[in-house]
């Protein structure tokens, strides 16, 4: 299995260690910024933009060079670090992490362009670039210790970003965020160390933190696996954030500066869902199946509950924060549907949410710059005086609502479909989330943009050229991924199938929910006959409640 | 090992001295008196060591006494130095008044 996973080797295929570069370029950038004298803040900004753009370009290169057909980890780099416990600097990318890396590479430079710090630019840029490096590292790490390290590294810059450059209750929000996430991570650390020690049984007696080796060793007892999964799950559930561990998010978002919010919503939340996928489903297949109903429930609750609470918010940013809870609820639900459509939908949802909600926060940042308030009651009639702003907001809002033709629909649909295939009723309830999403977003839009502007709002300037340019890449992606998500889905699919196949092999209670028939049945019937295959022989097919088995369609 | 009555008497003496010193340390507030009680306890320990040295016919008991005496002397120097410094700043201070290092 290890061989299958490490299908392609490291930098050799590219002649250039692209993955370490992705992680280190921003970190070195942060270091450089730290060394720049305080008297030259514009240099700090330039270095920050340069290093993040460079990382962004590298991520695009990675995307282009990625081998679509390969379902293992590519471009791997492995450097021994602490040999006594087999901790390595081990990086690799597969279909699942690829787009999260690209998203990081795109969203961070955009965030840097979109918002400027209110004070102490040097510290601001340093922390942001460090954050970028940490995120890259977390998505690429294939060594459990390295992952944990990167996971924690992302906490510190964000704590300072919120605490120092944020709004009113920033200290409270930053502290809450930090302590809450760290508390969750504490459980994850226990699981990691336990896993490392247990895994040694299979690998010739050495403690190892190597992800691939742990998977290969396969030596977890069922109960142990479940407990360890829970440990990891707590950390990720806090990060995602999943109900009921979500209350740090609204405060963190509301008080964070714009770039902080963009990155928090766009990237950092994905660390949680990515963690669930990589270190939950892939490491603990049996436990994933066992706990799937619980997590599906939490996901569904997140969707509905997050939407309802969002509808009651008076602060625009807080409203969007709760909408993030709802969207991430979809992501969780898709993962634990444990079938191709669900997991693919979930990964796509991670990407889509990053784009749409990142865009929303950028727009809110523009709003704040002009009006210095997020309170909905203070805003009105903006569409009349700033039509371009309103128009762009409409597009992004419709994407968030899940309008077909824009990116949000594809992922939400796949998630719901996958969930329906596996656990019908959860999907039926969760689908009602689309009603609630329309409710609160349109309500907020109406309050803020429509109607007649009053005095305070009448002088709202429309977006200038820079701001429009910042939005362009995101808008293009929103439309493109809505119409033609195939390239993305094609690259995600092999890795997803790898994970699910392993789950199938490992767990004898697990049957991946597949449909009868399959997609060949598409020709126009002549004379009203039945299509071939699948359904015909089953005759009276009743919908049953439990997961069904079927032939694996080629 | 034979414990003659005399040996037991010495041990009892040391125990009583230790108890007096311990209680005195806990109850008295004057720093000087507290230091004297600490000395009393240390000396009680010395007596115990010597008594056991005699009972077990081992000379190390008496050797240890020397170590203890040295440490006790050093401790007294530091302790009295502290007491002198304190009473210069706050004349008439006792142990209970000096609690700036509370939690």
């Amino acid at each position, binding site marked *: 299995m290890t061989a299958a996973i490490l299908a392609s080797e490291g930098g050799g295929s590219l002649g250039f260690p692209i993955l370490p570069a992705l992680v280190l370029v921003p970190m070195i950038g942060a270091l450089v910024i730290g060394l720049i004298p305080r008297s030259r803040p514009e240099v700090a900004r330039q270095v920050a933009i340069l290093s993040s753009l460079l990382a962004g370009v590298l991520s695009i290169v990675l995307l282009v060079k990625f081998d679509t057909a390969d379902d293992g980890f590519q471009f791997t780099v492995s450097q021994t670090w602490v040999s006594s416990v087999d901790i390595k600097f081990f990086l690799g990318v597969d279909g699942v992490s690829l787009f999260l890396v690209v998203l990081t590479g795109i969203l961070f430079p955009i965030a840097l362009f979109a918002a400027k710090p209110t004070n102490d630019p040097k510290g601001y840029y340093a922390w942001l670039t460090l954050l970028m490096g940490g995120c890259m590292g977390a998505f690429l790490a294939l060594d459990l210790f390295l992952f944990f390290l990167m996971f924690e590294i992302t906490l510190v810059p964000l704590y300072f970003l919120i605490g120092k450059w944020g709004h009113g209750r920033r200290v409270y929000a930053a502290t809450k965020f930090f302590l809450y996430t760290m508390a969750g991570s504490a459980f994850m650390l226990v699981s990691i160390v336990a896993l490392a020690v247990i895994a040694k049984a299979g690998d010739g007696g050495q403690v190892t933190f190597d992800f691939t080796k742990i998977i290969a060793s396969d030596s977890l007892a069922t109960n142990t696996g479940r407990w360890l999964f829970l440990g990891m799950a707590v950390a990720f559930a806090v990060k995602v954030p999943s109900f009921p561990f979500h209350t740090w998010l609204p405060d963190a978002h509301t008080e964070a500066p714009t770039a902080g919010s963009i990155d928090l919503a766009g990237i950092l939340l994905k660390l949680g869902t990515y963690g669930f996928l990589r270190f939950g489903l892939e490491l603990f297949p049996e436990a994933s199946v066992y706990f799937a109903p619980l997590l599906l429930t939490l996901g569904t609750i997140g969707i509905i509950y997050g939407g309802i609470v969002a509808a009651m918010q008076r602060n625009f940013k807080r409203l969007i924060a709760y909408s993030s809870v709802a969207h991430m609820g979809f992501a969780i639900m898709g993962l634990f549907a444990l079938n191709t459509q669900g997991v693919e939908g979930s990964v796509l949802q991670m990407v889509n949410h990053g784009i749409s909600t990142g865009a929303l926060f950028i727009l809110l940042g523009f709003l704040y710059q002009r009006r210095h308030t997020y309170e909905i009651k203070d805003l009105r009639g903006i569409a009349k005086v700033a039509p371009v702003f309103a128009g762009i907001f409409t597009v992004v809002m419709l994407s968030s609502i899940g309008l077909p033709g824009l990116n949000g629909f594809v992922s939400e649909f796949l998630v719901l479909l996958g969930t329906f295939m596996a656990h019908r009723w959860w999907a039926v309830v969760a689908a009602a989330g689309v009603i609630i999403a329309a409710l609160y977003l349109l309500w907020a839009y109406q309050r803020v943009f429509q109607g007649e502007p009053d005095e305070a709002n009448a002088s709202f300037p429309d977006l200038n050229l820079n701001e429009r340019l910042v939005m362009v890449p995101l808008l293009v992606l929103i439309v493109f991924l809505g119409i033609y998500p195939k390239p993305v889905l094609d690259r995600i699919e092999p890795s997803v199938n790898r994970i699910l196949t392993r789950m199938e092999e490992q767990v004898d209670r697990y049957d991946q929910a597949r449909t*009868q028939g399959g997609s060949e049945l598409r020709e126009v019937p002549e004379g009203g006959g039945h299509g071939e295959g699948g359904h015909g022989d089953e005759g009276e097919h009743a919908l049953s409640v439990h997961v069904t088995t079927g032939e694996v369609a080629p | 090992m034979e414990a003659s009555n005399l040996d037991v008497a010495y041990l009892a003496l040391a125990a009583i001295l230790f108890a007096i010193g311990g209680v005195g340390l806990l109850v008295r507030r004057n720093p000087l008196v507290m230091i004297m009680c600490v000395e009393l306890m240390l000396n009680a320990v010395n007596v115990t060591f010597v008594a056991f040295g005699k009972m077990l016919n081992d000379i190390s008991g008496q050797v240890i006494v020397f170590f203890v005496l040295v440490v006790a002397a050093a401790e007294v120097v530091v302790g009295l130095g502290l007491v002198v410094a304190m009473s210069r700043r706050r004349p008439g201070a006792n142990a209970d008044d000096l609690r700036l290092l509370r*939690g």
Partner: protein
Amino acid sequence: MVELIWLVPALPLVGFTILWFFGKRIGEPLAGWLGTAVVALSFLTTLVVFAGLWNEPDHTFQVDYFTWIPAGDFQVEIGFLLDPLSMAMIMFVTGIGSLIHLYSIGYMHGDSRFPRFFTYLNLFVFSMLMLVLGDNMVLTFLGWEGVGACSYLLISFWFEKEANASAGKKAFVTNRVGDWGFMVAMFAAFFTFGSLNWSTITSQAPGLAETTATLIAVMLLIGAVGKSAQLPLFIWLPDAMAGPTPVSALIHAATMVTAGVYLLVRANPILAASAEWVPWAIAIIGAATLFIAATIAVAQTDIKKVLAYSTVSQLGYMFLAVGSGGYTAAIFHMITHAFFKACLFLGSGSVIHGMHDDQDMRHMGALRKVMPFTAFGFIIGWLAISGVPPFSGFWSKDEILSYALHKSPVLYVIGLAGALITAFYMSRQVFMVFFGKARWGASADAELANLDAHDTSAAGSAGDANDLGEATVAADADAGPVAVATEHHGHDVQPHESPWTMTLPILVLAFFALVAGVLNLPFTENLEFLNKWLEPVVGENQAHLGLSTAKLLAEMAISTVVALTGIALAYAIYMKKKFDARKVELPFFYNGWYIDHGVTVFMGGPGRRLFELIALFDRVVIDGAVNGVGRLSRGGAARLRTVQNGYVRWYALMVGLGTILIIAFILTQVSFS
């Protein structure tokens, strides 16, 4: 030539794109002409495609363009299914669409966001075409939601007014409730069939288990009820009249609202395979809706609201047809309704335009003298909708009634009653607006004439003495027309006829409203063109009437009598003032049977309270728990801190105690030999 089908939706999409980016620069009126041109070209293309389709087997053509969503076993293509049903629909969608685009050039003249209007209209036409042409459920859903979004954008086009913005939001959210049903239907369909392609579904549907088919059918019905504004989800349609009239005509009369009917007809094999009660449910919903909406229309004073409720009612007829197994009848009525309702709406828009944006019918009257073309078109539309032969509405409505009778006499009676009321309220509208005495203009005569005419609606109170003053307001705050009385606006309005860009479409539509009946004359099978054309799609599941000529003629006679009765009643009340209109225009009807009111109260009351409760729960319980942990830590720490009290002797005591405990512990562990 069939391959040109891609052009049909592509043209409006191109129009949309150009107008989105360059609309402002292109400006009025060129933007309007561009928008109209693309849709007109699209229409011409449909004609070409139609010619080509004749040669295809079963008049069906399917083509795929590219893969949209590939995910394991779930593969969705962007592809078109051109069959008799979709062909019929794209023809009238683009045809009527282009006429309405043309009309809008005149109607939206002078509006500051003129180009943007056509942008949205083009996008709408594109979405509607995708809805109808989609060869799989997901693509249909794309169009479905697309038209919903465009509807939202267009209803709230004049968003500076809160009411318009709210109406748009209400439409979207109510639609979404239906969309939930559609989505669940899709999931169930994929689960069952392994594919969401219409051809697969329709061909495999006969083999479905009844429960499965019922589930899917019911979910699709929910979607249709939301989109086609049936009971109980119709509340958005009257509010949607806040949008500009062309929007009402196109979206809320001719196209979007018919999407629900289209969906049910498209899914007719599933309906056939479902439980007995499903078609009954559809028919009953249709019957209830048609009746209730008709009664509500009777009491409305806003010219567009009458037509809005009328649309709801006519859609009820289509649902009744579907439920009774008369799929072609439903489509037939959909087509004739599109013609005459669009004609009526455009006519009303022309009236509003001429009356300088006054929509209150009580201020109108005798407009036929100043707006002859509009009146002419409107009258033809009126006759069509009232079911007067030989106008198109008569044929289509009669066919529905035949199927209804076939299903159940009760439904037939309700349908007839609805027809009576329809004829009544439409005649009422025509008489109030185009005939009688003019109630506009500043002259005192006009004011007095005002009074006279108002006798019908206003002044419950012995309206007489109170001349121009207030009429005593009826106790009911939401009172209907009886109350408001002579709220004279000091009308100096001099109504005038509208420009040719507006009257031409009205007249064209009127023409079709007159002649469209030829599509499906019931006399012989040869004349039933539509039935034959749609047979590949619905043939197997269509109920067969087998009417004898005698029975047919009898039904036609009854319908005619009913229609004429309705007209006569309205004439008596509104022209001859024989009876008091207040007895008919009840506040109960005016307020929509208080259904919308009820929903609003619920949403604002218990609904909102539930939401608030949950938000409170989040803040107090969950966040409270988090903060509680923090408080607990601090509290605990504070208590523990008391141990560190700074007293040296205390510390010494603790050391002593600790030592004793350790020694005691060791002593218990150690055994003495």
